[in-house]
């Protein structure tokens, strides 16, 4: 099945800056009905890719109905307008539409890809799925069973358990603290009416962001936007979500009889609109970011062979920011690994990065943007959504390198101190921790 999973990468798109992206010419398009989209027109390959995002994801789930947004993302292609589930699946198959829907914490998003010559049929079906989903009883039971199945599997999955533990400790009673995919009880409780309510609250014209790439002209796009999205309600009805200032320092251990212990940790972070965002992004890259020469990678994996993977990332949500990290290591070395990580946190907080490290990070983060984000039309469409979501400006792709260059060593040391001085929340899942050894 074609349903989407790539939640993590959506957040990362924003974080990785740009260099040689001059080839991307972005047009701002507004349809007759006032629906806006960013477009990169390109006819090299006969494809059209579109990404879209509605503000309001799982934080909009009603109390006691956790998992509603997630379930909604699986139900749009299970019957719409005059077609039941099988009829819709067959029509989608005939139209050759590649599509996915995804419920994140703050957004409900989707992406589609279609061959140009099939695009009329594909967009007509997308319109049905977004505007007139049926939520019939049979597919609803089937999708709920699938979601419950996944929940049960995760009951003994150390990574999921660590994720649950961190979420509860860090976000507590805030909507972010609730299980995005629901629990066995809440999934059971969700009805077709609950889906209808959430659908009508979230999918509206005033909270949608759209990015389109490929073989489509401005006029064709305008017509398509009006057709696919023009019939949605004018205004979304979103509950206010409070800001949350994350506090850390509380640890927990979940007992599970597995040979390898999963370690997750969290520190308070910052939001995307924070003036220090790029500084924090660079500092995190040096500490535990994506590349294979971060301090954590060096100390945990290369020098000591404690783990296959180790890293940290900035998670920037609409109402909070955190630095999240994790690794997995043999149960009798988990405590050793934690102590290595804590020593590195302390060293980064006290000394900050060196000028050489900062220079390397700047070079990587400038160069990697085009390589990671601009090589397929689907990825470019996601970038167009991210630019609008965070209000980065149409010239963002060209300006990005300048933001990176502007970060000084002094800034980096200050932000390193602010970010890494806090006492982390650490969640371990596995056998009882053993005393550290050298």
């Amino acid at each position, binding site marked *: 099945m*074609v349903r989407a999973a790539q939640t993590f990468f959506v957040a990362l798109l924003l974080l990785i800056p740009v260099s040689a992206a001059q080839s991307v010419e972005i047009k701002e398009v507004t349809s007759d009905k006032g629906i806006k989209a960013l477009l990169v027109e390109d006819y090299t390959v006969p494809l059209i890719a579109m990404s879209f995002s509605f503000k309001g994801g799982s934080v909009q789930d009603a109390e006691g109905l956790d998992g509603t947004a997630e379930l909604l993302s699986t139900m749009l292609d299970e019957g719409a307008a005059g077609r039941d589930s099988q009829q819709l699946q067959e029509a989608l198959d005939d139209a050759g539409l590649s599509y996915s829907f995804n419920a994140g914490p703050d957004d409900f998003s989707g992406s589609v890809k279609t061959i140009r010559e099939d695009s009329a049929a594909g967009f007509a079906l997308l319109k049905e799925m977004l505007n007139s989903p049926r939520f019939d009883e049979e597919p609803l039971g089937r999708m709920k069973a699938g979601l419950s199945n996944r929940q049960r599997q995760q009951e003994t999955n150390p990574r999921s358990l660590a994720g649950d533990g961190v979420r509860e400790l860090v976000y507590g009673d805030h909507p972010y603290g609730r299980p995005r995919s629901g629990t066995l009880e809440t999934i059971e409780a969700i009805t077709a009416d609950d889906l209808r309510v959430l659908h009508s609250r979230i999918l509206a014209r005033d909270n949608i962001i759209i990015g389109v790439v490929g073989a489509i002209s401005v006029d064709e796009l305008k017509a398509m936007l009006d057709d696919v999205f023009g019939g949605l309600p004018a205004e979304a009805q979103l509950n206010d979500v409070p800001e949350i200032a994350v506090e850390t320092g509380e640890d927990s251990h979940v007992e599970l009889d597995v040979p390898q212990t999963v370690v997750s940790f969290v520190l308070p972070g910052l939001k995307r609109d924070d003036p220090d965002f790029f500084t924090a992004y660079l500092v995190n890259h040096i500490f535990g970011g994506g590349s*294979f*020469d971060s301090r954590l990678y060096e100390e945990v*994996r290369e020098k*000591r062979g404690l783990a296959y993977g180790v890293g940290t990332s900035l998670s920037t949500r609409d109402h909070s920011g955190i630095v999240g990290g994790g690794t997995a290591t043999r149960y009798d070395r988990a405590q050793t690994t934690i102590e290595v990580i804590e020593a590195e946190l302390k060293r980064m907080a006290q000394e900050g990065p060196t000028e050489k490290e900062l220079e390397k990070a700047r*070079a990587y983060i400038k160069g990697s*943007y085009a*390589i990671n984000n601009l090589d397929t039309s689907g990825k470019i469409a996601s970038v167009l959504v991210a630019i609008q979501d965070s209000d980065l400006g149409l010239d963002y792709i060209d300006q990005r390198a300048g933001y990176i260059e502007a970060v000084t060593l002094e800034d980096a040391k200050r932000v390193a101190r602010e970010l890494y001085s806090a006492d982390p929340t650490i969640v371990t899942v596995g056998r009882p921790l053993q005393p550290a050894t050298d």
Partner: protein
Amino acid sequence: MKRLLLALPFGLMAFAAPALQPALAQTGQLAETIAAGPQVTTFTLDNGMEVVIIPDNRAPVVTHMVWYKAGAADERPGKSGIAHYLEHLMFKGTETVPGGVFSERIAALGGSENAFTSNDYTGYFQRVPPGALEEMMRLEADRMENLVLEQEKILAERDVVDEERNQRTENNPGSLLREAMDAALYQNHPYGVPIIGWQHEMRGLTKDDAIYFYDRWYTPNNAILIVAGNVEPAEVKRLAEETYGKVERRAEPGKRARPDEPRPRAARLVELSDPRVRQPLFQRVYLAPGLSMVEGREGEALEVLSEILGGGPTSRIYKSLVLSGKATSAGAYYRGGSMDETEFGFYASPRDDTSLDELETLIEAEIATVLADGVTQEEIDRAIKRLKRSAIFAQDSQTTLARIYGATLASGGTIQDVQEWPDRISAVTPQDVRAAADRVLKIERSVSGRLLQKPAAEEG
């Protein structure tokens, strides 16, 4: 000979970071693209290294890959995991380029890199700005012949690989069952040995084992260079001659000779009960020919059959097991891309109180229907259309195209095999599908696997 592209993902990767996750389950479906897509340039260097260049001028990026025709199935008995361990050790530096320097250069450019090991091949790749291609080629050519291993670093990396096994397999009962099923399905062929290695053997691997594998297989006449992206073929050719072209032949690996499977005589059942299992699973795999092994259209027929039986929500298996309310997920697949005998498989996870027996019966009923009545022309037409269409989507990714060529050539196929695939798949008839099903879906060729929850009371 005919050969198709792989349904296999990369296999194990050197780094946990998801630098490049295969986006499509069936690279086999993508060959159509290639025939219709960019003009591919191909030639062989004097030292025997094959080169494939795939132009894509849309973004300032080039994908540079070197594939070695050697994988886990080419290991010596008792040395399981050495192909993958060596793949990790290839990052430890050479006589002139110390460990970490290659990776630092890539990072300085904003590039990404990784490496992967499968049963049939091992590969290394970087994605960088086109201006850096020459440097990548120079560094990759250098580590083809000048690897230096230091004992101390090798031991830490062995622990890393051990943790990789813990993460993928030991922590996951489903993976443990899958490993046991492979060992049962392949009674003689090394595909029955896990790519990452058996734990007791991989923990004893040494520097000498790694160097032995390196010296035997890592040689230009056993390697393929793939360059995809914003490049001029003539310029790439010049660079390839100046870099890889200077590497001496280090060995004559010859034909890869692996022991054949005997004719299967007995259906096998593998069960794993573990207290960690929360959701049981039924699986059934049949020993099946790889695409490259058979004359005629048998491999392509199996691809079409797997699409009809298990390709998504309109497939026979989905309707019979999932739409009926008996399973939460179910499907069928064919791994045609392997060099040697491979598998055709089914799986289903029960919904509510459905038993695994019941799921097995339903899957067997679908198999019986195919064997008795075959498939319809309409089903075949839909399957072919779907296979072809998803191919066009693949044109969007230079890295996907690079993978298709690399995997095909590294498993013994040719450029022509890739490019002629659409014609072959389009020619599949109902008779082809029925004949292939008749030959493959015999119970004595099969292994059934059951993943079961061990009641807490039985926990030791």
